[in-house]
């Protein structure tokens, strides 16, 4: 399956992904409706977009007491059935990445569904930080990302800007 791969080094914190996702979810541009969230750390000069990784062994899916979370047979995305969700928030507590959000208006949990296989966040990304790639290819990408982050941290720790 394919998932949204994130390269924090390429991200420029423009938040276009958030706006694109919010618009897809709500028809509006309130970033709070977005399933992808860009965390911006000003002091560290770092920005990290975070979105669901559609874990192979998805704990949110296993633990949902309403059986409202399932895997889309087409895209492999872990999806929430809003008509079944009771709003208990067990999935928020289960996700180790903080990638499930709660929609206070509708009273149900909400998360990335990969837009049915054409993620808007990736379409809107201007810097190449987001890519919709095969999960196996991602393992190689992650290696590159970790290398790059380490190099950057080492530079920072030595005072090289």
């Amino acid at each position, binding site marked *: 399956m394919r998932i949204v791969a994130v390269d924090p080094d390429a991200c420029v914190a423009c938040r276009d992904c958030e706006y694109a996702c919010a618009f897809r979810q709500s028809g509006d541009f309130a970033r*709070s409706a977005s399933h992808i969230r860009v965390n911006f750390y000003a002091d560290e000069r770092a920005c990290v977009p975070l979105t669901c990784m559609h874990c192979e062994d998805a704990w949110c899916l296993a633990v949902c007491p309403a059986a409202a979370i399932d895997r889309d047979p087409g895209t492999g995305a872990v999806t929430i059935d809003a008509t079944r969700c*009771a*709003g208990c928030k067990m999935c928020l507590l289960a996700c180790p990445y*903080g990638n499930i*959000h709660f929609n*206070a208006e509708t009273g149900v949990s909400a998360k990335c569904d990969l837009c049915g296989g054409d993620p808007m966040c990736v379409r809107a990304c201007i810097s190449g930080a987001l890519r919709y790639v095969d999960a196996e290819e991602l393992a190689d990408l992650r290696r590159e990302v970790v290398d790059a982050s380490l190099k950057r941290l080492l530079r920072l720790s030595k005072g090289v800007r």
Partner: protein
Amino acid sequence: MHVVIVGNGAAALSALESFRGHDRDSRVTLVSGEQGPAYSRVLLPYYLRRRLSRDGLFIRRADDYARLGAATEFGVRAEGVDPARRVLELADGRRLGFDRLLIATGSSPMRPPIPGLDGPGVHTLWTLDDAVRLDSVFREGARLVVLGSGFVALQAAWAARQRGLQVSVIELLDQILPRVLDPAAAQILSERLHACDVEVRTGTRAESVETDRGGRVRVSTSGGDRLPADAVIVATGARPNDQLLPECLEPDRPGIPVADTMETVVSGVYAAGDVTRGPTARGGPREIHALWPTAVEQGRVAGANLAGAGRSYGGSLSMNVTEMFDLTVASLGQFVEDEGDDVFEEHDRGGIRYVKIVTRAGVPLGAIAMGAPEGAALLGRLRPFVRHRRALPDLPAFLAREDLDGRLAHRSAAKERTSCASLQ
């Protein structure tokens, strides 16, 4: 091989699915004293609150069992086990032979030793039948007394209040939700209950319950009051349904003790879920963690091991979350500090009314979050550190993630406006 699973809740279903991940061929029979496909006990208060329909309570369809290659015996109680002959005895007299057995019989509401609890006006909220009965009791203007202040008790109180009942909660201990919250968090929730016109009496014992001929109830309290009510809900905790195989038990201790493999002392007999006394993530003596996520985890390990996969359970970690009276209430692990522990505590951080994280030598042991839903997500991110006892190098940075600050405050502002509005 014939595998028999007794139960039809979180542990049983998780075990069945996990077993089939390892073994597609062996015969499986699932036995449950209740009728029909599984429903979720966790959701019963949502049904009473009219958040879910009755159909919405069911978490499996009838054909899901066949899809997983399991024969079902619904509506038949398992009465006992003959461990030598490896036979499960059913209430209708049939005897079901097994090679491996899983006891996932759950737990039942505790009945405190209070005279009069067998009267017709006294209810529990544990089964679908209970919920359907209570649904007709929940008439606007009726008076309800809830004994206990755990999750079930307070969710019942919230549902009743939303449907226009007058509600009193009686708790023996000095704070509500004693096993889920610390006193500071309990105080915040108590104030919210009070604001929603729920009467809370902590440090109070119900001495007796009398039912008159008209079906009206009076609850006498240790404070000398006699509270008139149309109905009483007893929700003072649960005890494991552990009598199926007494050979598994330790003397005078509830819960079936299990090894890390979820196997009991009887070879080939496993237990999972509320019925077990199992290993915990922080080590030490085995405990009963009668919680949905624990049942799912234990069922998963037990199911794999029923198929001979040789899995080991890393131990249960207490985790609770729910919404009550428009407050998200979540706690994790050990949230009451011992001497020498560090406590990070903050009030009114954005929409989160209260956050508390207890650490020891940099390792988070547990936490509480109350207020906005983001608190539950925060505890979710903390959970791997608690479970694996990993040090969190920079707690302030961990908490400083942006969605906890700017956006959180924005969202909670909308949330505050709705507080108790549904009650008026």
